[in-house]
């Protein structure tokens, strides 16, 4: 290998002798010097910000009720509302009077932040009845003279959060404040450490890497290295090289690798520099950042393989640059077209939730659509259209009977994450040809529906509320019955200001009754699992596990809290749960998988490790024997089993790119949605494939399958390598962001496809180049 290493080493020497390289080095050093003064200051999370609100409407209603309802006057919410500035208080009073008043978040945050400095609103007795987090309890135990200013403000914030449950997003206890050269930014950029690390690792660093390495250095590198192969082909150079005892193929490959030296030297400077700046100044020591070095060189080598082949064929650096530029343009155009097809054709059709009612399969799609599988036509019938521009969203339907399902369509509004207008439970039945019929009024901001025993349960930002299936069907006119009670209730509710506030707070409406005990609210991140028989609910709310059981006393609507467990670790991490028999699976980001007794909430056996790069998307029980299907952000469905105190992750089931799973209890089948809108149905006993659903493609989907997708395989997806970079830097296989509806949404990184497509392309180009070089007379 010595001769070939000599060629590669010589390329490095040549690169280091290049003035362009030193120019690039200087530019990199200037950039790093400009970034170096960035710094961070960590402090306790105290001040409120607009993005801290999970449900501003609920807060408005709670504070208004605190002012308007005499029974709430001495409650935490009442005392906080009373201490608000006059203008805000006046607006809250208008809200309490039933007026439509829009209070800007800025006003509310300013008002709340004002309360942090003056705690005259605090009353120990009032807060004694409020659920307090461990951190608040510890701070409350400190005497005033033992607490510093920052901790005091933190305590005040926690008291406000405790008094207004279901209102705020989960935030880490400590925050990061950005500084530049020791000066804090004029605009408040405070984010918590977790968010800060995520922003830096998932957005900022990949952005810098993508633009500088993926674009500027690639272009610069092509300009500089385009002459390497043509220079080698000069007679005085080539004949001498070919007279040496070296293989032509390996000589060309060595020259190719050596040509990457320029970019490698630049990339090393930049990436190591960024790594040190992020570590020294921002305390983010992320060794994964160093993966950007090979990825960036890999990206460059895609373009360089074109340049090398063109240089080999025409022996002209100018032509090599020209051909590479044309190729880059083609990549860009195909990438943009592919992105448009992803966003406008494929993504809207992706299944996000499934249900089976009798023989009928329903799915909610990412594009806000509701579809039903028509077996005769082998296609999905659209009940609500899926569209990329659709800001509406459809809740995953639930089976109300073998021939009816319930769902809701949340009308999107630009400024209203919880939808605009009333939100009704929609009942679709076979007898009505699956036309949606409005039924009961759902609690405000309902985000999920569950079928629990003979009831329908809604979950919104803070509440769980139940209504009977019977009443839902009656209200939709599906069955006739004694609907007097619900109608009476509607009239009664419609008349009172309290009812309206209750609605705004997301409380139970119409035939719904609240399930949660007094002073308890579901806080994000949250997930719920219910007993099909309707006897219990298990939930996770901001890192806290809860088990609620139906009260034996039918006069009480609130269910009994029978078990409660605070999980170790960061409470704000994304969490999903599933219950199979007596076993509860808890899957949280960057935490081991926990198997827990669903009754006592005590751990069962050893926890199971799950790679930090995998984010749990959703989980489903498979039967009642402690088996689970967990969908992770790599698109795989992992099978987990807990038996006799032994937990095991058995492997993966189903195909890749799994989007949703649904366990059909009565048929004992597992439905796996994958590859946009395909379904595999597994028989749970033995997990054998019992049938598949491959619906017919129409219009643009056909164009995508037979036109765009093959084109994207042939043309390397260099743009998508940015996702590979982001995945490597962040250590995650998906990125989480809040969609316009305020829900956290995971977008999976396409990690391997661009790598495979680019690697294949390089292989093909270099194979052609090697054959040409090895067989041609020079």
């Amino acid at each position, binding site marked *: 290998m010595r001769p070939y290493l000599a060629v590669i080493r010589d390329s490095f020497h040549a690169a280091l002798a290049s003035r362009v390289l030193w120019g690039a080095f200087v530019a990199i050093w200037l950039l790093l010097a400009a970034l170096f003064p960035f710094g961070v200051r960590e402090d306790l999370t105290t001040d409120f910000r607009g993005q801290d609100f999970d449900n501003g409407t609920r807060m408005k209603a709670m504070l208004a009720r605190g002012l308007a309802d005499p029974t709430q006057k001495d409650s935490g919410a009442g005392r906080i509302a009373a201490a608000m500035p006059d203008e805000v208080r006046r607006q809250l009073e208008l809200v309490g009077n039933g007026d439509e008043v829009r209070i800007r978040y800025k006003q509310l945050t300013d008002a709340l932040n004002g309360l942090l400095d003056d705690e005259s609103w605090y009353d120990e007795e009032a807060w004694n009845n409020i659920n307090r987090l461990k951190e608040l309890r510890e701070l409350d135990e400190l005497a005033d003279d033992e607490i510093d200013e920052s901790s005091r403000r933190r305590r005040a914030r926690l008291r406000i959060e405790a008094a207004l449950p279901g209102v705020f997003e989960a935030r880490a206890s400590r925050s990061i404040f950005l500084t530049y050269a020791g000066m804090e930014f004029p605009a408040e950029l405070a984010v918590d450490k977790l968010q800060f690390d995520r922003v830096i690792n998932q957005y900022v660093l990949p952005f810098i890497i993508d633009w500088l390495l993926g674009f500027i250095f690639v272009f610069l590198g092509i300009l500089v290295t385009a002459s390497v192969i043509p*220079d080698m082909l000069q007679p005085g150079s080539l*004949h001498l090289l070919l007279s040496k005892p*070296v293989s032509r193929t390996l000589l060309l490959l060595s020259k190719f690798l050596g040509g990457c030296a320029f970019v490698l030297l630049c990339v090393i400077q930049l990436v190591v520099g960024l790594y040190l700046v992020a570590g020294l100044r921002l305390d983010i020591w992320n060794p994964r950042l160093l993966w950007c070095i090979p990825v960036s060189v890999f990206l460059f080598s895609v373009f360089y393989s074109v340049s090398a082949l063109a240089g080999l064929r025409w022996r002209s650096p100018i032509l090599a640059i020209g051909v590479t530029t044309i190729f880059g343009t083609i990549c860009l155009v195909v990438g943009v077209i592919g992105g448009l097809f992803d966003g406008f054709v494929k993504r809207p059709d992706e299944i996000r939730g499934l249900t089976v009612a009798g023989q009928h399969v329903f799915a909610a799609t990412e594009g806000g659509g509701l579809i039903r599988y028509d077996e005769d036509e082998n296609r999905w019938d659209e009940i609500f259209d899926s569209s990329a521009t659709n800001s509406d969203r459809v809740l995953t339907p639930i089976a109300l009977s073998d021939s009816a399902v319930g769902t809701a369509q949340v009308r999107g509004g630009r400024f209203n994450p919880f939808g605009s207008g009333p939100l009704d439970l929609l009942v679709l039945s076979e007898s009505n040809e699956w036309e949606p019929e409005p039924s009961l009024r759902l609690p405000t901001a309902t985000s999920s529906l569950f079928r629990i025993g003979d009831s329908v349960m809604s979950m919104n930002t803070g509440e769980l509320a139940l209504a009977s299936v019977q009443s839902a069907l009656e209200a939709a006119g599906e069955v006739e019955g004694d609907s007097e009670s619900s109608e009476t209730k509607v009239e009664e509710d419609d008349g009172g200001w309290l009812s309206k506030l209750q609605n705004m707070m997301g409380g139970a409406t119409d035939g719904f009754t609240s399930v949660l005990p007094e002073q308890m609210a579901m806080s994000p991140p949250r997930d719920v699992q219910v007993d099909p028989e309707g006897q219990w609910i298990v939930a996770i709310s901001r890192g806290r596990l809860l088990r609620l059981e139906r009260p034996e006393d039918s006069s009480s609507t609130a269910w009994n809290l029978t078990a409660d467990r605070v999980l170790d670790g960061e409470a704000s991490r994304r969490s999903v749960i599933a219950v199979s028999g007596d076993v509860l699976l808890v899957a949280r980001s960057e935490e081991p998988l926990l198997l827990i007794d669903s009754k006592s909430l005590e751990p069962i056996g050893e926890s199971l490790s799950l790679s930090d790069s995998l984010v749990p998307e959703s989980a489903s029980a498979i039967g009642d024997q402690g088996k689970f299907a967990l969908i992770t952000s790599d698109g795989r469905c992992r099978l987990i089993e807990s038996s006799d105190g032994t937990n095991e992750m058995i492997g993966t089931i189903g195909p890749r790119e799994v989007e949703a799973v649904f366990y059909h209890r009565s048929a004992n089948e597992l439905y796996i949605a994958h590859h946009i809108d395909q379904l595999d149905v597994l028989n749970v006993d033995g997990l054998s494939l019992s049938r598949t659903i491959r619906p017919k493609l129409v219009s643009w989907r056909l164009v995508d399958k037979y036109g765009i997708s093959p084109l994207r395989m042939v043309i390397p997806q260099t743009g998508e390598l940015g996702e590979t970079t982001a995945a490597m830097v962040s250590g995650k296989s998906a990125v989480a962001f809040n969609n316009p509806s305020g829900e956290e949404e995971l977008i999976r990184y396409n990690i391997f496809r661009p790598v495979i497509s680019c690697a294949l392309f390089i292989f093909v180009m270099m194979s052609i180049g090697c054959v040409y070089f090895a067989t041609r007379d020079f």
Partner: protein
Amino acid sequence: MTISATADEAAAIVDVRGLKKRYSGSLWGRKQVNALRGVSLSAAAGEVFGLLGPNGAGKTTLIKILLGVVRPSDGAASLFGEPVGSTAARRRVGYLPESLRVDRHHTARSALKYYGRLSGMSPNDITRRSDELLDLVGLKGRDKESVKRFSKGMYQRLGLAQALMHNPDLLVLDEPTDGLDPVGRNEVRRVIERLRDDGKTIFLNSHILQEVEMICTRVAILSKGEICGSGNIDEMSSGATTNRVTIEVAAPETAFNGQRAENKFMEWIGLSDSSELDITVLAGQSRSHRLDVTLDSQEKIDGAVDRLRQAGVSIARLEPQRETLEDTFMKLVSASEESA
């Protein structure tokens, strides 16, 4: 002219038999070219073999085939008994291309290091050989200088050094003095002579006949893709006397009697055809002339000498002319072109 075709085949280092090379034409109008039309030759160990030929004769194509850069269309060629182009054959060959191109970031020493590595040498051998060769080619002391500042002669000497780095058994030199000034040529020639004296086998491609004549032991003349003659250098430049005589004379002004010098010389020598006489006035001596005369018998020479002397012309030198390599070359090439 009778020419011995090959060297002792048993000791042949370069062995070429019926070699043909045809460059195919293209759709864009490029015509098919038969660069070699059945070339056979051989060079033995220790020989300095000169390959001569006019431009376009196929010399470079033949060398490219020997180096494995170009594949023959037909025939066979081997170096050291190994097929040309094989790694084993190339391992024993050092090559100086016609216009060596060394990347500008190199110094003489780093270039030798690079080419030494390409030849698979160990670091220790590279260091030792670099010192020896830099000394041999006269680049010691300038070995850390960028090649950007090298003259053409220094480049060629560096090229020779790199060709010798791995101590090859065969040295292929393609126009090693092309483009050099006389001083540069002399420098390169002296190095080659030292190598010859050290017993290296050298395959020299050149169109500078005097150079070949001075250095080579055997030559082959290539024309129109065919060998039109080959043999020992003595055979090719036989030294046989011709019917031409060179006479250097000093004639007083009065000897011409106001007539043209050419007419007077023709009269004294006894010539009737002016084409049989070439007159050169020797530099700095207006009365001295060199006369190249066709005189096909001793009687005619004696008569000419007598008449010159009678006319008061001093004879400084009289020498019969002998056949040179150039004469042989021109004769063979002309014959080849005529037959083509």
